[in-house]
């Protein structure tokens, strides 16, 4: 189901970047089987992936393809039935609940389709939330949350509550929250699904800026034109990797000198 908007590179299995870069995400033969009544449904059937530091990857697939399940596993929200998952050198597929919570806190920054901000709570406090759970002292918390909000151009609205912000602004707050603990990856699940196209473009531009600043971004989407913003697209179909391609932007980036962090 290749679409004309995505440029097909020569190979579908090789990684688009040079092999000497640091691997952030590595999965080996990842399976997830759900028990539906008496029936077993395999949502993932042996997924092998490698994502490198400062990559901008989109995971694409139709609904029911297993991409949400994959995202949950990558985000450490769930544990695989079989297989291994390494995140920044941690074998997270073997961790217990509290250790997974710590990984989610330190290594992953979530951006959700529905923003998932706490209502009745200021933007600043929403951004401070991961720092509260990592036990940062209050003064440092505020300072870092302010800095994160400034990164997403919301420095002037830190005391606004979610219902006083537009959809785009809410998503910026959510992105600031994802950034604030300097995670290994930013995991954005349909980040523009609830936004109009203008605002969507702003958010995608912001993600691009974050990538420029050295962040690793994993984008989960079913929209081609959103996936096109990424540099590499991993297609998921029937619980397996059905394609791993470089986008036009990815080609452009690959022909540039390496990113500063490399």
């Amino acid at each position, binding site marked *: 189901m290749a679409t004309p908007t995505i440029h097909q590179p020569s190979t579908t299995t090789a990684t688009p970047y040079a092999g000497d870069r640091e691997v952030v995400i590595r999965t080996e033969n990842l399976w997830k089987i759900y028990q539906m009544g008496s029936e077993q449904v395999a949502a993932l059937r042996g997924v092998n992936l490698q994502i490198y530091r400062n990559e901008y990857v989109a995971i694409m697939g139709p609904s029911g393809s297993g991409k949400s399940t994959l995202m949950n596993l990558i985000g450490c929200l769930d544990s695989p039935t079989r297989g291994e998952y390494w995140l920044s050198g941690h074998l997270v597929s073997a961790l217990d609940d*509290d250790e997974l*919570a710590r990984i989610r806190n330190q290594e992953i920054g979530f951006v959700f389709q529905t923003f*998932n901000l706490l209502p009745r709570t200021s933007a600043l406090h929403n951004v401070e939330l*991961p720092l509260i759970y990592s036990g940062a002292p209050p003064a440092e918390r505020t300072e870092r949350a302010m800095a994160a909000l400034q990164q997403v151009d919301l420095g002037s609205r830190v005391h606004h509550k979610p219902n006083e912000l537009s959809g785009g602004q809410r998503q910026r707050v959510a992105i600031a929250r994802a950034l604030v603990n300097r995670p290994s990856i930013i995991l954005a699940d349909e980040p523009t699904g609830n936004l109009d196209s203008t605002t969507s473009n702003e958010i995608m531009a912001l993600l691009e800026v974050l990538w420029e600043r050295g962040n690793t971004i994993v984008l989960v989407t079913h929209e081609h034109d959103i996936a096109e913003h990424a540099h590499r697209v991993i297609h998921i179909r029937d619980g397996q990797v059905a394609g791993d391609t470089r986008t036009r932007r990815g080609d452009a980036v690959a022909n540039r000198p390496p990113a500063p962090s490399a």
Partner: protein
Amino acid sequence: MGIREAIAVALGTLRAHKLRSFLTLLGVIISVCTLVAVVAMVQGVNTYVGSKIARLGSNIFSVSQFSLNEMTNPVRFMRAKETNPIIRYQDYQFLRANARLPRAIGAQTQRTGTVKHNGRSLDEVNISGVTPNVLGMSAFQVANGRFLAPTDEQRRAYVAFVGPDIVTHLFGGANPLGRHILVSGQQYEIIGVATAQGDVFGQSQDNFVMIPLRTYQKIYGNQDSITLDVQARDARLLPATMDEMEMLMRVRRHLSWNEKNNFGIIGSDALMTLWHTLTGAIASVMVGVSFVFLVVGGIVIMNIMLAAVTERTQEVGTRKAVGARRSDILWQFLVESAVLSTVGGLIGVLLAYLFTLAAGALTPIPFSLPLGAVVLAVVISTLVGLFFGVYPASKAARLTPIAALHSET
């Protein structure tokens, strides 16, 4: 997550749902209010009664037909009615003749009756026959005229010393001295009026007619037991004086060493003890009732916390996604439940305080908020919140992040 963040979150939720929180807390509010108000009331009433009993005159006790122990138990009372003879005028004379320690011994007996004057009548008046020396042992003073004199006693005169209620109701407030009242078909001349003492628990203390004891016995016979009021010379001599009275009464009754007293010696401390027993019983019933309220209140809190967990499943998911551990979520909801309940406790204390203010203004009873009860009530309400928050909080803590994130709210 620290305690301060948890409390801030809890107070925020409380503010966001003011009406719901208030309704939820009604049980806790009522129970804490009852608890504190009852303790305040019992303390106030005890102080009040204590002061009233103290006003009877210090170092005074009475010798009566029955002991307090016998008067407060129906079985013992029925038995004592068989064994205890009435106290007669001759007993009074015997004690006066033989006792050496008391400063004074007075005697009185009483019944209720109707008092009439000029076509007007007053029912339920306390008619007492007294010896002239009870004046110094009673709470009232002479406001007008004079008290009964020894000569009235000797002559068995038809004279009466009356409470202010008689003057108000039968004489319309006019000076009654020298005028007559009719009690049980007999005319008495009013020779004196007492100072007003007001009400005790709505019972007027000024609704009485006092006539000489001998006159009383002439009219009503001598089958009513009389009560002897004995005043010791000072507090140190009070126990010895009580012993002397007991000894003399036993001698007069010819009781051998192994027989029990067939009369009662009642001191003000015994009265206070009896009173404390009564109020203690009332207080413990009320405290029990308020604990039932508290349990009901706790269950309501548990219910609302369960609803809050369901309602905020997505919040739990978000918190877990950004790194909250199970214990963080458990702690958050526990603190919320405890804060909710504590706020209810504080509102209850506030209401109890308002109640004591109002009751203090409307009654002569000195109410005060007992600090110990306030602290206890608030601590208990916190504990109730913690206890009944455990189940909802652990339910929230056990939510898996995916289920929580994908819940539709």
